[in-house]
């Protein structure tokens, strides 16, 4: 029983990364009908921005020989990384995708893969092949609750992931910017007739998704403090699967699918050899999609209205 509960905590942490990255995938797909295949690498860039921010803040604190507590550095790192990475996302949209808005979707997909390669190899060229160690910001404290070991890091990761998901959901449901995003997901072409600049909404969508990816990157660095230029690829693809599973454009769908994916992966390895993990996990997801082809919260394609 303790082992089981332990794995629930682990799955929640593991799912947090998928959830935060999947939301960005899903939002961009929902609003712009575009899979941003570079999103996993935007997550990687976010992790690196977090790394440099945290290292810089620690050096600054050391220089002034004032004790800035680690949790404060973590909060600042999260905020700064999210802020800066939103500009990375907007640049990807502006340079990579906006010129292709009327092009066939395949062109945009290829461009996305290309942007991903540029970000990976750009990182390699600039920073070298050496891996970076994310600085330990909060020293791990282990709590034992009823036979389950919970670290303060796990709690922070899960709480931040849930809080950001809910905050974004509220933003999309209750602000006029969020309404514009939902409107764009429904009928792209009439949005300008409401006096809404499409390009601004597209940039906003990328900014929000990239900010969440940066949060995922920083939290990932806290849990697994080794950063490399290719760290975003696998997480990116899995988050993409979670976005599909959650349903087009649905934030809560992407988040819950991200957590579900975390659960499936962790629990499969409880029962089967870990080499079978992805095989079994994705078989389960294929089965789910067979019966729910639009995902958890996705609406079937309304025959897309033409102008």
């Amino acid at each position, binding site marked *: 029983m303790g082992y089981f509960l332990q794995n629930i905590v682990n799955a929640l942490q593991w799912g947090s990364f998928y959830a935060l990255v999947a939301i960005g995938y899903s939002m961009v797909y929902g609003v712009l009908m575009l899979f941003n295949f570079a999103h996993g690498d935007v997550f990687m860039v976010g992790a690196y921005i977090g790394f440099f921010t945290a290292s810089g803040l620690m050096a600054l604190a050391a220089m002034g020989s004032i004790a800035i507590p680690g949790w404060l550095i973590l909060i600042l790192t999260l905020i700064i990384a999210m802020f800066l990475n939103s500009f990375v996302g907007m640049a990807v949209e502006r340079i990579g995708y906006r010129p292709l808005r009327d092009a066939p979707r395949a062109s945009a997909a290829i461009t996305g893969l290309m942007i991903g390669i540029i970000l990976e190899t750009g990182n390699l060229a600039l920073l070298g092949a050496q891996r970076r160690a994310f600085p330990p910001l909060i020293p791990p404290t282990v709590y034992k609750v009823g036979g389950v070991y919970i670290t303060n890091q796990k709690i922070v990761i899960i709480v931040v992931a849930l809080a950001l998901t809910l905050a974004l959901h509220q933003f999309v449901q209750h602000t006029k910017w969020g309404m514009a995003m939902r409107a764009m997901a*429904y009928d792209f072409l009439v949005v300008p007739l409401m006096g809404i600049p499409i390009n601004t909404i597209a940039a906003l969508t990328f900014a929000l998704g990239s900010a969440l990816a940066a949060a995922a990157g920083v939290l990932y660095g806290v849990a697994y403090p080794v950063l490399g230029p290719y760290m975003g690829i696998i997480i990116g693809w899995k988050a993409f699967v979670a976005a599909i599973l959650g349903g087009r454009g649905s934030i809560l769908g992407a988040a819950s699918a991200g957590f579900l994916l975390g659960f499936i992966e962790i629990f499969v390895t409880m029962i089967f050899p870990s080499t079978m993990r992805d095989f079994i996990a994705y078989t389960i997801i294929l089965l789910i999609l067979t019966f729910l082809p639009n995902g958890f919260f996705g609406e079937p394609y309304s025959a897309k209205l033409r102008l």
Partner: protein
Amino acid sequence: MLLSVENLQVSYGKIKALHGINFHIDEGEIVCIIGANGAGKSTTLRAISRMVPASPGSKMTYAGKDLLEYSADKVVSQLGISHVPEGRRLFGNLTVMENLILSAFARKDKKAIDRDIERVFGIFPRLEERKRQKAGTLSGGEQQMLAVGRAFVSARKLMLLDEPSMGLAPLLMLSVFDALKAINQEGTTILLVEQNARMALKFSQRGYVIETGNIVMEGKSEDLLNNPDVKKAYLGA
């Protein structure tokens, strides 16, 4: 002259939809363009609201400004031209209230927006009853009311209306047109395109007849109503 259109040409790929049409609208007028399905009525409105590009050589002047220098969203937010598109095109996944709030996206005057939304509810009480309902669940008539209401809130110097009578029962159609008349009397200029030529000509002061991308006739609406050619081709008499 509020809007003057000269030599407006629009092509969809190789197909020319408008072959250089000319017309104008004065401030406060209700003008209609009638014509058969596919004659170029909707294309004309889309060109004005900059949803489709006008071919080189086209000229559109609105309140002394070159309309072609404005993008689609700025036509609404800076020039005050609203467009009720063909098929209403509501955001079916948003509530009635959200559709109205969204149509005021570029406006900053919070108080005036609230007043305008109240005004829409005053004209169409049915919408207020259903303001929390998803727009996709409204009946056809209610959807048309919301489409007009949305245009009313978004911009109100010139309203472009694409087939507001489409799919409406006669009684509902009359109430929509009554509301449009009231909106016009408050100072909104209206350009209306309709297949329902009789309704459009009764409602408007002046009219143009468009055929396969060319304006073939123009005049006072009552004259067009009595014109034997118009009668034969469009009024089924």
